[in-house]
Protein backbone atom coordinates (compact mmCIF):
# COMPACT_ATOMS: atom_id res chain seq x y z
CA UNK A 1 0.00 0.00 0.00
CA UNK A 2 2.96 2.24 -0.35
CA UNK A 3 1.54 3.32 -3.62
CA UNK A 4 -1.64 4.60 -1.99
CA UNK A 5 0.25 6.49 0.67
CA UNK A 6 2.76 7.85 -1.74
CA UNK A 7 -0.01 8.99 -3.95
CA UNK A 8 -1.73 10.65 -1.06
CA UNK A 9 1.27 12.45 0.31
CA UNK A 10 2.36 13.57 -3.11
CA UNK A 11 -1.14 14.75 -3.90
CA UNK A 12 -1.26 16.66 -0.62
CA UNK A 13 1.98 18.36 -1.40
CA UNK A 14 0.84 18.73 -4.96
CA UNK A 15 -2.25 20.55 -3.85
CA UNK A 16 -0.37 23.00 -1.79
CA UNK A 17 2.16 23.46 -4.54
CA UNK A 18 -0.56 23.80 -7.14
CA UNK A 19 -2.37 26.31 -4.99
CA UNK A 20 0.74 28.37 -4.60
CA UNK A 21 2.32 28.04 -7.98
CA UNK A 22 -0.61 29.45 -9.95
CA UNK A 23 0.15 29.49 -13.65
CA UNK A 24 2.77 26.80 -13.33
CA UNK A 25 0.35 24.23 -11.97
CA UNK A 26 -0.16 22.33 -15.26
CA UNK A 27 3.56 21.77 -15.45
CA UNK A 28 3.91 20.95 -11.84
CA UNK A 29 1.17 18.37 -12.12
CA UNK A 30 3.34 16.10 -14.11
CA UNK A 31 5.12 15.15 -10.93
CA UNK A 32 1.97 14.01 -9.17
CA UNK A 33 1.60 10.62 -10.84
CA UNK A 34 2.59 7.78 -8.58
CA UNK A 35 4.30 4.80 -10.09
CA UNK A 36 2.58 1.57 -9.17
CA UNK A 37 4.66 -1.06 -7.47
CA UNK A 38 5.12 -4.51 -8.99
CA UNK A 39 3.13 -6.23 -6.20
CA UNK A 40 -0.61 -6.13 -6.50
CA UNK A 41 -2.57 -6.08 -3.27
CA UNK A 42 -5.23 -8.76 -2.79
CA UNK A 43 -7.83 -6.17 -2.03
CA UNK A 44 -7.23 -2.79 -3.48
CA UNK A 45 -6.34 -0.43 -0.70
CA UNK A 46 -8.53 2.46 0.04
CA UNK A 47 -7.49 5.60 1.76
CA UNK A 48 -10.11 6.25 4.33
CA UNK A 49 -9.18 9.19 6.48
CA UNK A 50 -7.10 11.98 5.20
CA UNK A 51 -6.98 13.83 8.49
CA UNK A 52 -4.75 11.13 9.93
CA UNK A 53 -1.76 12.71 8.32
CA UNK A 54 -0.63 15.68 10.30
CA UNK A 55 1.64 17.11 7.72
CA UNK A 56 3.11 20.48 8.21
CA UNK A 57 4.23 21.52 4.76
CA UNK A 58 6.00 24.57 6.14
CA UNK A 59 8.27 22.53 8.31
CA UNK A 60 11.64 22.52 6.58
CA UNK A 61 13.00 19.17 5.53
CA UNK A 62 16.54 19.17 6.90
CA UNK A 63 17.30 15.57 7.68
CA UNK A 64 15.64 12.22 8.07
CA UNK A 65 14.58 12.98 11.62
CA UNK A 66 12.69 16.03 10.48
CA UNK A 67 10.14 13.67 9.05
CA UNK A 68 9.30 12.15 12.43
CA UNK A 69 5.61 12.44 13.02
CA UNK A 70 5.07 13.37 9.42
CA UNK A 71 5.72 10.21 7.57
CA UNK A 72 5.23 6.55 8.33
CA UNK A 73 8.46 5.09 9.62
CA UNK A 74 7.52 1.75 11.05
CA UNK A 75 7.74 -0.82 8.31
CA UNK A 76 4.86 -1.78 6.12
CA UNK A 77 1.41 -0.80 7.34
CA UNK A 78 -1.21 -2.59 5.35
CA UNK A 79 -4.83 -1.75 4.87
CA UNK A 80 -6.76 -4.77 3.76
CA UNK A 81 -10.37 -4.18 4.52
CA UNK A 82 -12.65 -1.83 2.72
CA UNK A 83 -14.31 -0.54 5.87
CA UNK A 84 -11.30 0.48 7.84
CA UNK A 85 -7.64 0.12 8.28
CA UNK A 86 -6.10 -2.76 10.14
CA UNK A 87 -2.48 -1.95 10.59
CA UNK A 88 -0.22 -4.95 10.67
CA UNK A 89 3.13 -4.21 12.20
CA UNK A 90 5.70 -6.89 11.68
CA UNK A 91 8.43 -5.33 13.73
CA UNK A 92 8.90 -6.80 17.25
CA UNK A 93 6.45 -9.58 16.64
CA UNK A 94 8.54 -11.96 14.60
CA UNK A 95 11.93 -11.24 16.21
CA UNK A 96 12.91 -13.84 18.75
CA UNK A 97 14.46 -12.48 21.91
CA UNK A 98 17.95 -13.98 21.94
CA UNK A 99 18.89 -16.36 24.69
CA UNK A 100 22.18 -15.48 26.37
CA UNK A 101 22.10 -18.29 28.88
CA UNK A 102 25.17 -19.89 27.34
CA UNK A 103 27.16 -16.76 28.10
CA UNK A 104 25.97 -16.20 31.63
CA UNK A 105 27.52 -17.56 34.77
CA UNK A 106 25.86 -20.45 36.50
CA UNK A 107 25.09 -18.40 39.60
CA UNK A 108 23.01 -15.81 37.79
CA UNK A 109 21.11 -18.10 35.42
CA UNK A 110 18.09 -18.21 37.66
CA UNK A 111 16.35 -14.81 37.51
CA UNK A 112 14.47 -15.44 40.75
CA UNK A 113 17.59 -16.01 42.82
CA UNK A 114 19.44 -13.15 44.49
CA UNK A 115 22.71 -12.39 42.72
CA UNK A 116 24.19 -10.83 45.82
CA UNK A 117 24.91 -14.20 47.39
CA UNK A 118 27.33 -15.10 44.61
CA UNK A 119 28.70 -11.62 43.96
CA UNK A 120 31.77 -12.12 46.12
CA UNK A 121 33.01 -15.23 44.39
CA UNK A 122 32.14 -13.84 40.99
CA UNK A 123 34.01 -10.60 41.45
CA UNK A 124 36.98 -12.35 43.06
CA UNK A 125 37.18 -14.58 40.02
CA UNK A 126 36.91 -11.62 37.66
CA UNK A 127 39.64 -9.67 39.39
CA UNK A 128 41.85 -12.72 39.69
CA UNK A 129 41.47 -13.43 36.00
CA UNK A 130 42.23 -9.80 35.13
CA UNK A 131 45.22 -9.76 37.45
CA UNK A 132 46.74 -12.95 36.06
CA UNK A 133 46.28 -11.71 32.52
CA UNK A 134 47.91 -8.40 33.42
CA UNK A 135 50.84 -10.17 35.11
CA UNK A 136 51.50 -12.29 32.05
CA UNK A 137 51.07 -9.26 29.83
CA UNK A 138 53.55 -7.21 31.84
CA UNK A 139 56.04 -10.07 31.72
CA UNK A 140 55.64 -10.48 27.97
CA UNK A 141 55.96 -6.74 27.35
CA UNK A 142 59.05 -6.51 29.53
CA UNK A 143 60.66 -9.44 27.71
CA UNK A 144 59.95 -7.99 24.28
CA UNK A 145 61.25 -4.55 25.24
CA UNK A 146 64.36 -6.02 26.86
CA UNK A 147 65.14 -8.13 23.81
CA UNK A 148 64.65 -5.20 21.48
CA UNK A 149 66.80 -2.86 23.53
CA UNK A 150 69.57 -5.39 24.11
CA UNK A 151 69.66 -6.10 20.38
CA UNK A 152 70.92 -2.56 19.94
CA UNK A 153 73.84 -2.94 22.33
CA UNK A 154 77.30 -3.99 21.19
CA UNK A 155 77.78 -7.69 20.59
CA UNK A 156 80.30 -9.77 22.51
CA UNK A 157 82.99 -9.75 19.81
CA UNK A 158 82.85 -5.97 19.54
CA UNK A 159 83.14 -5.66 23.30
CA UNK A 160 86.08 -8.06 23.31
CA UNK A 161 87.87 -5.96 20.67
CA UNK A 162 87.36 -2.77 22.62
CA UNK A 163 89.88 -3.69 25.32
CA UNK A 164 93.60 -4.30 25.11
CA UNK A 165 95.78 -5.89 27.74
CA UNK A 166 99.43 -4.82 27.79
CA UNK A 167 102.31 -6.53 29.59
CA UNK A 168 104.29 -3.65 31.05
CA UNK A 169 107.39 -5.75 31.71
CA UNK A 170 108.18 -5.72 27.98
CA UNK A 171 108.64 -1.95 27.89
CA UNK A 172 112.06 -0.79 29.08
CA UNK A 173 112.47 2.45 31.00
CA UNK A 174 112.64 5.54 28.85
CA UNK A 175 111.04 3.80 25.89
CA UNK A 176 107.72 4.24 24.18
CA UNK A 177 105.71 1.42 22.61
CA UNK A 178 102.84 1.77 20.19
CA UNK A 179 99.85 -0.54 20.16
CA UNK A 180 96.75 -0.63 18.04
CA UNK A 181 93.63 0.00 20.03
CA UNK A 182 90.19 0.61 18.48
CA UNK A 183 91.88 1.34 15.18
CA UNK A 184 94.10 4.04 16.64
CA UNK A 185 97.72 4.01 17.80
CA UNK A 186 98.14 3.84 21.54
CA UNK A 187 101.31 5.11 23.14
CA UNK A 188 102.54 3.48 26.33
CA UNK A 189 105.55 5.27 27.71
CA UNK A 190 107.75 4.06 30.53
CA UNK A 191 109.06 7.32 32.00
CA UNK A 192 112.33 7.76 33.77
CA UNK A 193 112.55 9.37 37.21
CA UNK A 194 114.01 12.50 35.62
CA UNK A 195 111.09 12.84 33.20
CA UNK A 196 108.59 12.42 36.02
CA UNK A 197 110.27 15.16 38.02
CA UNK A 198 110.44 17.52 35.05
CA UNK A 199 106.78 17.06 34.10
CA UNK A 200 105.58 17.41 37.67
CA UNK A 201 107.44 20.71 38.01
CA UNK A 202 105.94 22.33 34.92
CA UNK A 203 104.10 25.56 35.68
CA UNK A 204 100.49 25.49 34.45
CA UNK A 205 100.78 29.04 33.10
CA UNK A 206 103.25 27.84 30.46
CA UNK A 207 100.73 25.42 29.00
CA UNK A 208 98.34 26.02 26.16
CA UNK A 209 95.97 23.34 27.50
CA UNK A 210 96.67 23.45 31.24
CA UNK A 211 96.54 20.04 32.86
CA UNK A 212 98.58 18.76 35.78
CA UNK A 213 100.77 15.78 35.09
CA UNK A 214 99.26 13.87 38.02
CA UNK A 215 95.80 14.28 36.50
CA UNK A 216 96.95 12.66 33.27
CA UNK A 217 98.49 9.54 34.73
CA UNK A 218 97.40 6.85 37.15
CA UNK A 219 100.96 5.77 37.95
CA UNK A 220 103.65 8.39 37.24
CA UNK A 221 105.89 5.75 35.65
CA UNK A 222 103.39 5.02 32.91
CA UNK A 223 101.99 7.54 30.46
CA UNK A 224 99.26 6.10 28.27
CA UNK A 225 97.90 8.38 25.55
CA UNK A 226 96.22 7.99 22.18
CA UNK A 227 98.84 8.65 19.51
CA UNK A 228 96.80 10.97 17.34
CA UNK A 229 97.95 14.55 17.05
CA UNK A 230 95.15 16.87 18.12
CA UNK A 231 95.94 19.19 15.25
CA UNK A 232 95.05 17.23 12.14
CA UNK A 233 95.36 13.64 13.24
CA UNK A 234 98.89 12.60 12.31
CA UNK A 235 100.75 10.06 14.42
CA UNK A 236 103.49 11.80 16.42
CA UNK A 237 107.01 10.45 16.72
CA UNK A 238 108.06 9.48 20.22
CA UNK A 239 111.17 10.68 22.02
CA UNK A 240 111.53 13.55 19.63
CA UNK A 241 110.92 17.27 19.62
CA UNK A 242 112.11 20.08 21.82
CA UNK A 243 110.46 18.76 24.98
CA UNK A 244 111.61 15.17 24.71
CA UNK A 245 108.14 13.70 24.46
CA UNK A 246 106.39 13.48 21.13
CA UNK A 247 106.82 15.40 17.94
CA UNK A 248 104.32 15.52 15.14
CA UNK A 249 106.14 15.57 11.78
CA UNK A 250 103.22 16.89 9.79
CA UNK A 251 103.06 20.44 11.11
CA UNK A 252 105.62 20.47 13.91
CA UNK A 253 103.69 20.11 17.14
CA UNK A 254 105.86 19.45 20.18
CA UNK A 255 104.47 17.42 23.07
CA UNK A 256 106.22 16.84 26.38
CA UNK A 257 106.72 13.52 28.17
CA UNK A 258 103.24 13.75 29.59
CA UNK A 259 101.67 14.18 26.14
CA UNK A 260 100.86 17.87 26.68
CA UNK A 261 101.08 20.31 23.79
CA UNK A 262 103.96 22.74 24.28
CA UNK A 263 104.72 24.21 20.87
CA UNK A 264 103.23 24.13 17.41
CA UNK A 265 99.75 24.33 15.96
CA UNK A 266 97.96 21.59 17.95
CA UNK A 267 95.34 23.03 20.31
CA UNK A 268 94.98 20.25 22.88
CA UNK A 269 97.01 17.71 24.79
CA UNK A 270 97.12 14.11 23.60
CA UNK A 271 94.00 12.28 24.71
CA UNK A 272 94.23 9.98 27.72
CA UNK A 273 91.99 6.90 27.43
CA UNK A 274 90.47 5.12 30.39
CA UNK A 275 92.78 2.41 31.73
CA UNK A 276 93.39 0.49 34.90
CA UNK A 277 96.12 -1.65 36.43
CA UNK A 278 94.81 -5.04 37.56
CA UNK A 279 98.31 -5.80 38.91
CA UNK A 280 101.78 -4.25 38.79
CA UNK A 281 102.73 -5.81 35.48
CA UNK A 282 99.55 -5.38 33.43
CA UNK A 283 97.43 -2.55 32.18
CA UNK A 284 94.01 -2.90 30.57
CA UNK A 285 93.03 -0.04 28.29
CA UNK A 286 89.36 0.39 27.46
Amino acid at each position, binding site marked *: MRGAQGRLSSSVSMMSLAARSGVFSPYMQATAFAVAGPLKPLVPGVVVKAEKFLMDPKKPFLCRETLSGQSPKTGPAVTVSINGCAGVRFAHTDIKVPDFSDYRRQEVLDPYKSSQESS*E*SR*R*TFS*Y*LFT*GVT*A*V*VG*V*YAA*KTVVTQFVSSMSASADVLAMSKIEIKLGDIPEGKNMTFKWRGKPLFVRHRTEKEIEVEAAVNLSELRHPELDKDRVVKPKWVIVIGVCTHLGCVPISNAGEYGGYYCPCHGSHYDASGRIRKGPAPLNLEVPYYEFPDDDTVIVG
Partner: protein
Amino acid sequence: MALAKTVYDLLFRRTSTFAVTIMVGAVLFERVFDQGGDVIFEQMNRGKLWKHIKHNYENKEE
Protein backbone atom coordinates in the same frame (compact mmCIF):
# COMPACT_ATOMS: atom_id res chain seq x y z
CA MET B 1 36.03 -18.64 50.42
CA ALA B 2 37.39 -16.73 53.37
CA LEU B 3 40.78 -16.69 51.69
CA ALA B 4 39.26 -15.36 48.49
CA LYS B 5 37.52 -12.60 50.41
CA THR B 6 40.74 -11.67 52.22
CA VAL B 7 42.65 -11.59 48.97
CA TYR B 8 39.94 -9.52 47.33
CA ASP B 9 39.75 -7.01 50.17
CA LEU B 10 43.51 -6.69 50.58
CA LEU B 11 44.73 -6.76 47.01
CA PHE B 12 42.01 -6.28 44.43
CA ARG B 13 39.61 -3.82 45.97
CA ARG B 14 41.65 -0.65 45.46
CA THR B 15 43.09 0.14 42.08
CA SER B 16 46.37 1.16 43.69
CA THR B 17 46.86 -2.14 45.49
CA PHE B 18 45.67 -3.99 42.40
CA ALA B 19 48.35 -2.31 40.30
CA VAL B 20 51.01 -2.99 42.92
CA THR B 21 49.87 -6.61 43.05
CA ILE B 22 50.25 -6.91 39.29
CA MET B 23 53.75 -5.41 39.34
CA VAL B 24 54.99 -7.55 42.20
CA GLY B 25 53.31 -10.55 40.64
CA ALA B 26 55.06 -9.85 37.36
CA VAL B 27 58.46 -9.80 39.06
CA LEU B 28 57.78 -13.06 40.87
CA PHE B 29 56.28 -14.64 37.77
CA GLU B 30 59.30 -13.63 35.73
CA ARG B 31 61.68 -15.32 38.15
CA VAL B 32 59.64 -18.48 38.39
CA PHE B 33 58.97 -18.68 34.64
CA ASP B 34 62.54 -17.98 33.52
CA GLN B 35 64.25 -20.19 36.06
CA GLY B 36 61.69 -22.93 35.59
CA GLY B 37 62.29 -22.79 31.87
CA ASP B 38 66.04 -23.07 32.39
CA VAL B 39 65.60 -26.04 34.71
CA ILE B 40 63.38 -27.81 32.19
CA PHE B 41 65.89 -27.09 29.41
CA GLU B 42 68.75 -28.50 31.42
CA GLN B 43 66.72 -31.55 32.36
CA MET B 44 66.00 -32.25 28.70
CA ASN B 45 69.64 -31.70 27.72
CA ARG B 46 71.26 -33.45 30.61
CA GLY B 47 74.77 -34.56 29.71
CA LYS B 48 74.98 -32.40 26.60
CA LEU B 49 75.77 -28.99 28.04
CA TRP B 50 79.26 -27.69 28.68
CA LYS B 51 78.73 -27.42 32.41
CA HIS B 52 77.75 -31.09 32.52
CA ILE B 53 80.87 -32.32 30.71
CA LYS B 54 83.29 -29.64 31.87
CA HIS B 55 84.92 -31.79 34.56
CA ASN B 56 85.98 -34.39 31.98
CA TYR B 57 88.25 -31.91 30.27
CA GLU B 58 89.49 -30.23 33.41
CA ASN B 59 90.79 -33.56 34.73
CA LYS B 60 92.82 -34.09 31.58
CA GLU B 61 94.64 -30.79 31.89
CA GLU B 62 95.66 -31.37 35.48
